[in-house]
Every structure is written in C-alpha cells, then in structure tokens.
C-alpha cells in the first residue's frame, strides 16, 4: 500500500468508522489509565478481548512482517491508528511489554525460531509479557543487577528477585536481565538477556499494592528456577547491550512498536473542561484570571513538548545539542502532567478529598487517580532525576 495523502485520509476514515462501531461500552468497572495497572481478572479479560478485536481488524503490528502476523505496511498507518485510538479515548492496549518492547526487540535481533515462537502470541494477546529488570536493591543502577543465571547442561538455573514486575501475575513470558558472570571485567559485561517463561518451576510472584490502591505489578522470585538454555537471547555477556536496545524501544527512541497506545491521554483540553464545569461564586473557574493564567502556562508547556517532537525530525534544527530532544521527552512530558494533574485536584474544593470509589467524586476521581498514577512514569523507566543526569551528561557534556 502506498502512502499518498488520499490513501492515508481514506485509511484514517476507515479506522474512525471502525472505532465508532467497535469501541466497547463502559464495562461498569474501572479501566486502567495505563498498561501498568491491570490489577483484576475482569480488567484483564476485558483488555485481552479488546486487543484481540483490534488485532483481528488489522490495526496492531501493522509494520510487522506478514509472516509473523503483521501487515508489512509503513509506520504512518500504525501512527494513524494510534492517534485515533487516543482521540477516541479507547481502552488501552495493555500488552505493552510485548507489543512495544519485546516484539520489536525480537524482530530486530531475534532468531527465526524466536520470531516464529513469540511474535504472533504478542499480537493476539495469547501471550502476555512482563519485564524482569529492576531488583529491590538495583533499580536506577540497573547495570548492577544481581539476579543470577547459571548454565547447567541444557538449562539455566535462576536465583534472585525482580520487582515492579508489571503483569507479573498474568504473564506467560518475561524479558529477563540476569547475571551470568559475576567475575566479568565490569558489571555490565556480566549480564545476559533471556526470553524466559514465567510458569517454570521455581518462579513465583507476589502482588504489590500501589499508592492508587490498585494492583498491577508484583515482586518476582527465582528460587532454583530452571529455564531451557535456548531462552538465552544472543550470547552470554550481551545482556546490557540488549537491555539498552529494549529501552530504546520503550522510550520510543526507536520505532517499530505494534502500537504506542498504552496510556489514556489526559491533556490540557480535559483540564479546561474541568475548569468549565467547576463553579465558584456562581461562575466557572474558567472565568477566573488566576486560573486562566495557569491554564495558559500549561498549554504553552504542552505545545512546547509537541513542537519539540516535530523539531526532532528536522535535523538542521537539532545541531547544537543533538541528543537533547530525544533524551528529554519522557522527563518533560511526565513532569508537566504531574503538575497539571495535581493542579486539577487542587481546584476541586472539598471534593479534592474524594477518591475513585466515591459516587460524588468529580469525573469518577480521575484527576486524583491520574495524579497518583503519573508517578509510575516519573519514577519508572528511569526516574526524572536520573533522566536529568543522563541529559546533563550526554546532551550537555557535563561530568558524571
């Protein structure tokens, strides 16, 4: 399929029409705002069914090769689907670790056998994926991961623990970073990368409750766990390199995700609507000049961010600090949303003290919920403080 304007416009209209007919009704229970809080069986089943529906319609993994379940079309089509999913506030695609990270990783550097084995299941949601990177003692300092993998015959024996394992309870597979060589020349060189089954002997999970009150991630324990040796991806000692490539996909520095739609978008438009709804002294908050000024500040910041995304594609305008825009995306967006969401809570008067299960909560307590949830983004995937260090060191050239 070609990418001329008319074809793209027609495709977008097709997607919009399909969504109009197929977005599921409100199921009557809270749906996750992001892929990181699928905490109940009913949420899981709902989202599996929804992903399967979207995949069967031909709207997931559009850029992935046909022989593994994709459609071999160009990125612009997947972008259109993702945009419209967002515009329609559709339920999220929750199997992110498969769709966005493991899938592109395997397609990029996996063996033929790995592609045959894993890709289709990611797309249909038959296989849910989780990530075993962070450990209780090694989070920001991921390179120091200590979970041990020892080769014994045609198996690896795993010992240790991973934490913040999103989908740990439900996952079939884990992308696992483990230490195969404690005596390597440096800490990074001792790491290896595995595509590990979750239901192997010796692997167990324990759900962790979040500040939002919900579930969605776990601690994962490896107690003399045994996985087949062919779960190793690449060679021993390549773990850090493969993990970094995974992060490139996670941070959308590299493309090729089956979809990027894994969180509900809450923007300044929603904030404006809220300010229109809330009345003080007989007038909408939107008429208050102090609120107006703050809203405009948020909109400017939001637009700066959008324009940065655009500018990052224009090489001639990114010559001064070449890494800057690429490295700052997550930091800027997540911190802006954190401030915006907290601001929205503060506008609600006494109702700011209500939470998601209260019938009188404004918009079902979405701002309160979203505010707490944003910390998964300001902390996870590299904390804002670490991002600042990375930008300082790699974009500005400041010393470690």
């Amino acid at each position, binding site marked *: 399929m070609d990418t001329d304007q008319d074809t793209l416009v027609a495709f977008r209209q097709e997607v919009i029409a399909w969504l109009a007919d197929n977005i599921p009704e409100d199921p009557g229970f809270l749906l996750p705002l992001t892929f990181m809080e699928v905490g109940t069986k009913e949420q899981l089943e709902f989202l599996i069914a929804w992903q399967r529906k979207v995949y069967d319609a031909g709207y997931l993994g559009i850029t992935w090769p046909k022989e593994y379940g994709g459609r071999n079309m160009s990125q612009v089509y997947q972008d259109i689907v993702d945009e419209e999913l967002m515009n329609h506030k559709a339920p999220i695609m929750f199997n992110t670790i498969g769709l966005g990270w493991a899938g592109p990783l395997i397609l990029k550097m996996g063996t033929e056998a790995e592609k045959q084995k894993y890709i289709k299941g990611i797309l249909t949601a038959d296989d849910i994926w989780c990530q075993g990177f962070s450990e209780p003692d090694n989070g920001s300092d991921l390179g120091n991961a200590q979970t041990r993998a020892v080769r014994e015959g045609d198996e690896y024996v795993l010992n240790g623990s991973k934490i913040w394992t999103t989908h740990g309870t439900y996952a079939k597979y884990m992308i696992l970073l483990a230490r195969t060589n404690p005596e390597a020349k440096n800490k990074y060189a001792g790491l290896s990368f595995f595509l590990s089954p979750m239901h192997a002997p010796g692997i167990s999970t324990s759900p962790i409750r979040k500040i939002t009150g919900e579930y969605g991630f776990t601690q994962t324990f490896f107690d003399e766990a045994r996985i087949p040796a062919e779960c190793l991806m690449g060679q021993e000692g390549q773990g850090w390199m493969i993990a970094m490539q995974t992060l490139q996909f996670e941070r959308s520095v590299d493309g090729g995700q089956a979809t990027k739609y894994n969180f509900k978008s809450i923007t300044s438009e929603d904030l404006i609507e809220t300010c229109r709804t809330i009345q003080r002294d007989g007038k909408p908050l939107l008429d208050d000049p102090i609120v107006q000024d703050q809203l405009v500040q948020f*909109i400017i910041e939001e637009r700066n961010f*959008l324009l*940065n995304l655009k500018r990052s594609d224009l090489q001639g305008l990114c010559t*001064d600090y070449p890494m800057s825009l690429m490295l700052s995306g*997550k930091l800027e967006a997540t911190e802006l949303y954190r401030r915006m969401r907290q601001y929205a809570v503060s506008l609600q008067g006494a109702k700011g003290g209500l939470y998601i299960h209260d019938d009188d909560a404004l918009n079902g307590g979405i701002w309160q919920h979203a505010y707490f949830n944003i910390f998964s983004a300001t902390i996870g995937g590299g904390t804002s*403080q670490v991002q*600042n260090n990375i930008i300082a060191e790699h*974009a500005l050239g400041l010393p470690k």
Partner: protein
Amino acid sequence: MKFAQTARNHKVDSMRFSEEQKMILESARSFCKDSSSIEQVRKLLESSQGYENDVWKQLVELGWTGIAIPECFGGSELGIESVVPIVESMGRSLSTTPFISCTLAAQVLLRAASPEQQQRWLPGMAEGKVATLALLDNEDWGANSTTHQLSDELVLAGEKWFVDDAVTAELFVILTQYQGSPRFVVVERNQLSDSAIQAHALIDETKRSAKVDFTGISVTADAILSAENTQEILDDIKLIGALLIAAEAVGTTSSCLNLIVEYLNTRKQFGKLIGSYQALKHPSVDILNKMEGARSQIYHAATLFEDSKGVVDRDVEVACRMAKASANDALLYAGDRAVQFHGGMGFTYECNAQLYIRRAQWSQQQFGDSAHHRKRLVPLLLG
C-alpha cells in the same frame, strides 16, 4: 513511552526548515561569530552607538537589511521565516546592530505605506539606511492608544520612549494620533535637533534606546503613512517584534548555557569538577529544556509566517505570543543561574554572566513580558 498527543489541528505542530533557512542559519552564525566575539561585545559597551559601522556595512552586503523587502525595492523578498534564523544567530553572539529596528520599520512601511512612500524609503533601507520605530509613550506595552499628537497643521507634539537605535537612526516611524485616529508618520533625522534625543541608561549595555522628543517637528502630508487601519497594523508589528526578540533571546539562552557548561566543566572544588554536582547539573538541564521549548516555538511561528505569507492570522498570533513567553522565561532563568553558578566570580562585572542577566531583563519586556502575552492568549486558547 512516548507521551505524545498528536494534534488534530495539524497547524498546531507544523514546522518546516528549508534548505534556504538552513543556509541562512549557517551563514548568520558564522558571520555573527566572526564579527561579534564576546571581546568585541565588551569593547562596544561604552561606545555611544553600540556597534561598528564596518560590521553594519558587511551585514548590509550580505543582503540582510533587504531580506524581507520586495525585490522591486532592492530586497530579496523573503519572509519573516528567513529573518528568524538571522536574529537567533545575533542573539547567540549578543550582536548589537540595529537590525531588528530596521526590520520592523520596514514591516510597518510594507503594511502601512503607499507605493510612493515605499519607493521613497524602502530602497534606502535595503541598502542599510537605519530606521526605527517610535511606539511607546511610556512603559506600557499594552496601551491601546497614544497621547502623541499630530495637529491639523501637521506639527507633532509629544515624546516617545524606548526608541531603539535612535542614536544612529536616519528614519523614525512614529505612532501618533491624527484627527482622532492613530496613524504612522515618518520623520527624518535631519528634522531633529541633537537635544531631542536623550539616551536611556539601559540595564543591558549592549543595546541602545532613547527618549525622542518630536514636539514642534513639522511634517508634510506625504509623510503620514497612507493606511488608516493603523491599530491592526500596530498589533501585527508588535507580534512580529515579539517573535524577533524571542528568537534573539533563544540564541542568547543557548550561548548563556554554553558559558555555564564551560565553567562547570572547568572549575573544581572538593576535588571534583563542579559540573558533577547535581545541584548545578539539574538546573543546567532545566535551562536546556526551556531553551529547546522556546526554540521549537520560534521555528513553528516562522513556519506559520511562511504558510500565511506574512499575514498575522490567529494561529500566527498564538505562536508569536507563546514564543515570546517561552523565550522570556528561558533567558531569565539562564541569566539568573549563570550569575549564581559562577560563584564569587559571577558577582563581578568582569565575568561574562552579567552580560546575559542584563540582556535577559531587557529582552523580557520588549514587545511584552510573559504575563502580558499569557493574558492575551486566554481568549485565543480558552474561548
């Protein structure tokens, strides 16, 4: 995770950077770097006119004073989108020529003058004749009217403040009131006595701006610019001015950041380079991120100018206001932190940080501070 909301209104994030703009940016940077080193900037602080004539001559030879002037008047007939990379580069070098004043004066003539009037003045300006605007009666950029008067006998009354580059201007484009309506009128330097021009003592010693008293100056009828929709044109000019100052400020922020980073990579305390301390590292990243946001805004505004062929429509207005607000905040923060992060040295006149903090105070108010623009964005964004 890519936290992107792709805009449904595709203008909201449009940005292009043509080969032509790229060439202009590269040559502008190169020229400004060569003609306006920090030593040259410092040397000019005490001079009465603030720039060197031969630098101005070279700039004219590059065609920049004619860049946005139609070909029939000797210009290159490019748009504001081509001026943005030039002023950004000027800001980067703290370069001090009357370029922005001349550009804005030309824009007034293009929008408000009759063909005869344009023919009279624009060719000279394309060749480097210095022109400037006399808009303000006082400090208020938000004032909607002027107290300056042009009598029925065509005699001017009143003083204008903050007439930039008055010291070398040969043409003054003045906002006045004539027969109850705002109008632009042009006065030539030879109509003024020396005592009519009284230089302001600016916080930014790289810039030049003056009070000019036009009281008693007689003009001929053909010096009154023909357009009667002066208020609309004035509004547009203020937005173009805001964008150009924003672009200049973005360049300055970048070079201020470089100054800070260089120091953080040089100065050692407690056995380490001070740039390794997060208390200095993290705010440096804040400066970078603020600068990048503002930079994206100025090139977005430039793109919209190209799309609208110079017409200041609603989207252009929003972009100019956002650009100015973002650029103000970025440079203010950068200048402030530049002083702080240079420690004791930062508190001296000799340290170059002072040049940036002073430029930041000057730039933030020109054509409206951040609050001024945010206030005017309210009906455009929240309506």
